């Protein structure tokens, strides 16, 4: 039979039938249903299994606090594990499957654990599984892991997209119940910019679940009208199906908007949007969540929150059973009986733990005051309840109300501590919520609806007034005053029967008491020892109950027992939503150099250097191994001419009267007297004396310098220079701008480099060796008037230049240079050949400037000026940095020239064992030199500067290589630097 529990009415569209499946069975529901309400309409009470004991479980709540009804929704890569049926809007074709059972849901093989439960109490695993030692990883733990966990990830890439968005408002109102709507009305009427957000897809909060009348009409009707009114106002943004998940600093809130229905229709649409909402103020109107009472076997399918029974009845037109009973400790629980009566259902019994007179008449129901439920029967569905007065009552649904906990979570996100309020037997927000947040209504502990509405109304206007908006006098909506009385009830001793506190994690009253007995008395200890409140519902229905049980057990107050800390997120949030579009190739930005298109045409192989893609080598037809290409590029450059894109180097334009002085402070070597038209190598230290970066700086005119930095440090160096200027020497006349992106820069290297350049440099620019010697720099024009900068500097050790041109000409210049170089057989070379040549030449680069080496270590101690103060001078003199046995940079060559040498080998004495004590250093950079015909490396060895000629072993245990090497000078090619100057 279809939807046997469905009745007429409700806030659903009974004309629009939706088909869905649960564990393969085809079922029907209506537009406006949640998955949970549709399941209940179809009398599906058993919907899942608990985490540890695999107990049969049913739907308990009608909201995001649901501990039991968590399912896998969808299939394949779209499968969503651990999804709450209670907040999943039903759609046509929805496919739901229960999780965490072996075999069918009704005969879960793992339910054996329930019978072993005496063995499996809180913390049992800390006391066993230790013998034999090796069995933990091999046997015990895999078994535990397999049985743990809940839903299953698809293991396929998430096919959906997620967006991020930013919104700004004066006032964010969290929650669109009676309080939130009242606050929104007065705030919005003032003209303030309002965002009203609610996690439900239907705004109105509990008004949609209750039968209260507001301003003379049904509460749900009033909510609908009010939402429509707000929606028509320009200064109001309504965000339904949007869960605020966290309160962050300075009024920033995180929110997740669910757009699954759009994503299902169109795969390009985001499934969710992660909003960052910037607010001046926020009013928390998140209402309250009902809690359970601990009694024997209180976890059977059919035992639900009293408020949830009303939600299903009133909003979803579902009667959760035919013989419903109510168990309460407060007046509110009685409303369930009243609403059932109003819909024509007879209530089996109302059990109230308070010894007072009945709160109302419930015709036909057995009324038991001062009575508790002590046990229940019915394994897969509730059949009967046993009372403390000895009676047994047949019932298929038990509506339980243990009172209401204000949803004060966000008030604790900045570590506010809730305080206990005896009158409502709940924790309420303390006086220090996050800056800018105020609380109204039941979230604040104002349990009477009429009062909550007034509170919302007043706060909406006072917060707006606080922000300078003019508020008008208006009256709050009116509703009859219904009092709320409660007497805390944490459950009575349940004897042998287990009484559940945390349903999902299977934490019972006994577990809590055992934890206390074993010395775990702090609420945090109990949580950690028993896993209480750590399930997907984060203890929303369990925590306060647990604190009550602890307080009673240890004979202390609720306040002294305290609460655990509420942290974001308020409800679990998909990781994909936090990542947004930052995935795949869009994870980080990609930077191309100006020659990228040209290089792509040449079939260049690219390598990542930071964000940049640089050409690594340029294979020619027939070259099958990268070494063939690289060796050729090196040989060709050293014998004729090669071109390399070095645009990625950091470039900083510096102008001002005091630049010389400034550079003299930030470079370790002397910079006070660089002549105009000259470039100088600069070594930059950190303040701690360790090398930070190196590069060249050219003096283009009296007060104009151009600095280059390494690619990796471009950003850091610029930031550092700004610090030095703005913070250390604010009065120096220095002005800097990074021009890394503004200039394309190419190295033109090799004996024919001048000849090549002379073909494109305009005739009035003399670049002969006499006019433009080694280390010269100047402004030139090329190709008939295009301004460029030329530097005669060399990283390869050959006669070489670097030419810089505005980026927009970068592609053209590359093509022009290649064309002009045809007669010299010019080749482009990539970063590999660049690396080979710099290592042959003994230049330190990234692997050597690794943030652990000093100028002395690098053999550049001689450059250090002792005549000036500069960044890194004083601390660079510290004793340990000056020791002779520090790791110092030298060259290494294999004693047997045919031996393979590997970078990052460590260095050992010839007969030493590989131990940490014997470790003498490491090879930082290593290449095969096509010029010398063998491998060579540079690296660091203890006291290396004085050990040249000594033989040691370069040992790579990771890849299994062990060769004898000779310590030598790192300058393998042209150590005198003659080729540079020709």
């Amino acid at each position, binding site marked *: 039979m279809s939807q046997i529990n469905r009745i007429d009415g409700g806030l659903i569209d009974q004309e629009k039938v939706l088909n869905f499946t649960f564990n393969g069975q085809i079922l029907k529901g209506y537009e406006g249903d949640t998955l949970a309400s549709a399941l209940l309409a179809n009398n599906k009470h058993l919907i899942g299994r608990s985490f540890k004991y695999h107990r049969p479980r049913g739907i308990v709540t009608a909201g995001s606090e649901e501990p039991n009804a968590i399912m896998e929704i969808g299939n394949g890569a779209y499968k969503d*594990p651990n999804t709450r049926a209670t907040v999943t809007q039903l759609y046509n074709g929805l496919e739901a499957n229960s999780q965490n059972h072996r075999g069918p849901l009704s005969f879960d093989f793992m339910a054996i654990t329930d019978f072993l439960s005496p063995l499996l109490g809180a913390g049992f*695993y*800390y*006391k*066993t*599984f*230790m013998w034999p*030692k090796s069995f*933990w990883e091999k046997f015990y*733990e895999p078994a535990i892991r*397999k049985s*743990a*966990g*809940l*839903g299953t*990830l698809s*293991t396929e*890439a*998430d096919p959906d997209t*997620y967006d991020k968005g930013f919104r700004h408002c004066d006032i964010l109102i969290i929650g669109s119940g009676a309080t939130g709507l009242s606050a929104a009305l007065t705030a919005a009427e003032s003209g303030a910019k309002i965002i009203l957000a609610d996690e439900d897809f239907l705004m109105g909060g509990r008004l949609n679940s209750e039968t209260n009348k507001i301003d003379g009409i049904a509460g749900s009707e009033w909510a609908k009208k009010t939402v429509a009114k707000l929606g028509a106002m320009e200064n109001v943004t309504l965000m339904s199906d949007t869960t605020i998940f*966290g309160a962050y*600093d300075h009024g920033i809130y*995180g929110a997740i908007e669910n757009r699954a229905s759009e994503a299902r229709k169109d795969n390009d649409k985001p499934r969710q949007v992660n909003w*960052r909402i910037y607010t001046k103020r926020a009013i928390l109107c998140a209402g309250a969540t009902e809690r359970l009472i601990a009694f024997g076997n209180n976890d059977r399918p059919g035992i639900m929150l009293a408020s949830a029974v009303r939600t299903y009845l009133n909003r979803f037109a579902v009667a959760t059973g035919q013989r419903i009973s109510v168990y309460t400790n407060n007046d509110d629980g009685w409303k369930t009986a009243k609403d059932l009566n109003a819909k024509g259902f007879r209530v089996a019994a109302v059990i109230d733990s308070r010894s007072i007179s009945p709160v109302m008449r419930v015709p036909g129901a057995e009324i038991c005051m001062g009575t508790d439920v002590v046990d229940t029967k019915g394994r897969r569905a509730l059949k009967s309840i046993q009372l403390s007065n000895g009676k047994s009552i047949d019932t298929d649904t038990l509506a339980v109300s243990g009172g209401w906990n204000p949803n004060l979570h966000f008030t604790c*996100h*900045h570590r506010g501590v809730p305080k206990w309020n005896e009158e409502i037997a709940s924790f309420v927000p303390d006086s220090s919520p996050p800056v800018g947040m105020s609380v109204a209504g039941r979230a604040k502990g104002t349990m009477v609806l009429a009062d909550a509405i007034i509170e919302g109304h007043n706060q909406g206007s006072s917060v707006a007034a606080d922000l300078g908006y003019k508020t008008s006098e208006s009256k709050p909506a009116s509703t009859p005053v219904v009092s709320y009385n409660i007497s805390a009830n944490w459950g009575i001793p349940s004897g042998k029967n287990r009484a559940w506190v945390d349903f999902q994690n299977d934490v019972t009253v006994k577990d809590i008491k055992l934890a206390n*007995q*074993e*010395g*775990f008395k702090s609420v*945090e*200890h109990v949580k*950690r020892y028993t896993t209480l409140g750590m399930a*997907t519902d984060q203890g929303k229905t369990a925590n306060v109950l647990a604190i009550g049980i602890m307080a009673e057990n240890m004979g202390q107050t609720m306040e002294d027992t305290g609460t655990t800390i509420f942290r*974001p*997120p308020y409800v679990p949030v998909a990781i*994909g939503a*936090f*990542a947004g579009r*930052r995935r*795949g190739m869009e*994870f*980080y930005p990609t930077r191309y150099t100006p020659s990228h298109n040209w290089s792509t045409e040449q079939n260049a192989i690219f390598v*990542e250097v930071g964000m940049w893609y640089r050409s690594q080598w340029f294979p020619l037809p027939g070259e099958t191994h990268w070494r063939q290409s690289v060796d050729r590029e090196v040989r060709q450059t050293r014998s004729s001419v090669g071109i390399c894109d070095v645009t990625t180097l950091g470039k900083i334009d510096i102008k001002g009267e005091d630049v010389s002085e400034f550079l003299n402070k930030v470079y370790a070597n002397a910079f006070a007297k660089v002549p105009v038209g000259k470039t100088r190598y600069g070594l930059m230290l*950190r*303040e*701690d004396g360790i090398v930070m970066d190196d590069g060249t700086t050219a003096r283009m005119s009296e007060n104009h310098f151009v600095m280059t930095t390494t690619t990796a440090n471009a950003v850091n160096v610029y930031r550092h220079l700004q610090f030095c200027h703005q913070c250390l020497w604010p009065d120096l006349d220095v002005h800097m701008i990074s021009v890394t992106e503004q200039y394309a820069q190419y190295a033109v290297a090799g004996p024919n480099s001048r000849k090549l350049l002379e073909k494109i440099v305009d005739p009035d620019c003399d670049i002969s060796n006499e006019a433009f010697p080694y280390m010269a720099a100047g402004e030139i024009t090329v190709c008939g008037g295009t301004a460029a900068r030329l530097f005669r500097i060399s990283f390869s050790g050959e006669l070489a230049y670097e030419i810089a041109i505005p980026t927009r000409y970068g592609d053209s210049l590359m093509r022009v240079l290649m064309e002009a170089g045809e007669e010299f057989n010019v080749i482009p070379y990539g970063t590999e050949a660049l690396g080979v040549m710099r290592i042959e030449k003994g230049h330190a680069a*990234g*692997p050597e400037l*690794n*943030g652990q080496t000093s100028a002395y270590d690098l053999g550049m101690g001689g450059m250090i000026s002792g005549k000036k103060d500069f960044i890194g001078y004083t*601390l660079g003199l*510290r004793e340990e940095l000056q020791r002779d046995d520090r790791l110092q940079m030298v060259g290494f060559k294999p004693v047997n020239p045919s031996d393979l040498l*590997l970078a*990052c080998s*460590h260095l050992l004495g010839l007969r030493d064992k590989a*131990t940490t004590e*014997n470790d003498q250093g490491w090879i930082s950079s290593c290449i095969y030199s096509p010029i010398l015909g063998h491998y060579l490396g540079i690296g660091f060895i203890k006291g290396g500067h004085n050990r040249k000629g000594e033989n040691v072993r370069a040992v790579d*245990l*990771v890849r299994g290589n062990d060769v004898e090497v000779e310590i030598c000078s790192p300058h393998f090619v042209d150590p005198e630097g003659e080729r540079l100057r020709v």
Partner: protein
Amino acid sequence: MSKTHYSAFKVLKEALTGHKGWEPTWRDAEPKADGYDVIIVGGGGHGLATAYYLAKNHGITNVAVLERGWIGSGNVGRNTTIIRSNYLLPGNEPFYELSLQLWENLEQDLNYNAMISQRGIMNLIHSDAQRDAFIRRGNSMLFADAGCEYLEAKEVKERYPFLDMNNARFPIKAALAQPRGGTVRHDAVAWGYARGASDLGVDIIQNCEVTGFNIENGKCLGVQTTKGDIKANRVGVCVAGSSSRVMEKAGIKLPIESHVLQAFVTEGLKPVLDNVITFGAGHFYCSQSDKGGLVFGGDLDSYNSYAQRGNLPVVEDVCSGGMAIMPMIGRARLLRMWGGVMDMSMDGSPFIDSTEVKELFFNGGWCYGGFKATPASGYCYAHLLATDVPHEVATAYRLDRFRRGAMIDEKGVGPQPNLH
């Protein structure tokens, strides 16, 4: 005193008799009027381990551990549970290797199952430069007998088919794994050490905040606490996260900044990830707990903070890093996020040392690596407190190392705590 031996037999016996026989895991004590040989300030993992090893290795049992709140409430109570000894520098590697060896025998030593699980840790490699850096490190590990394994991309793919190998911004080229690395049930470490120390006679005193030190003529004679003054022949501070605040009470300023590190856990999921995966290039690392949650983290929030909570930019960065290599986790939901306060030192390495105040010792500066160090930290600190001599694997962890220029800077980023 408890002295209850834990075993499967004991669990069975208690199950049959209603669990009436379980005694407190540790003995809650009040301060002794005549004081202690050693007071450990801070009942976190390191403090409790120190007390345990003082008693066990050195026979010093007249010891109190003073804890401001509840034991294990510091970083041992909130971390990403990873243990490993894959360090680069000789000042660090032997220390962390000792720690890993102590982890390997901890459960039998303590008779407490902290679920030490050597499921392996794997660092992904995305570039030649990174490969070199990891091989240098791998060799350091092998020189220290810590073990490691170099995996080519193909092997990585075989083991973890869900990793995005090709379409990623940083394609995976290789990995360096330490099979002996893994994870531990973090809270249990504090409880196990507390139980072990308590059984050997150590007083564990909770809700006892140290408010000052009694120092005369440059010598520490005891501490002032919310439970009154307590005398001690020697005081060892061990309060990472609060080091600067506590040591300031003794007039000592430290080369430490306090920063917040966020960490994250998802809802429980059936096993998908059996070891620890570290994606350094994307600032993301992840493992899966025995309970099924994916436990992950990334970088510091980067500003000084004592607030124990972070902000959204880092949350989004870390999750992006996860999606960049493991796009299957998009539909896993983040359940909890939390922020712990880190003692970020000026070179990223810790301190275990005496101080300028006689009989006052200091252990801290653990940055975000303190959890894995817990056993060795306690072991070496106890050694120093008992013998006045640093343990041989902890000789580099001196407070004066910056004065001398003997930094232990694994990352090479210099005196910039938020970059370590």
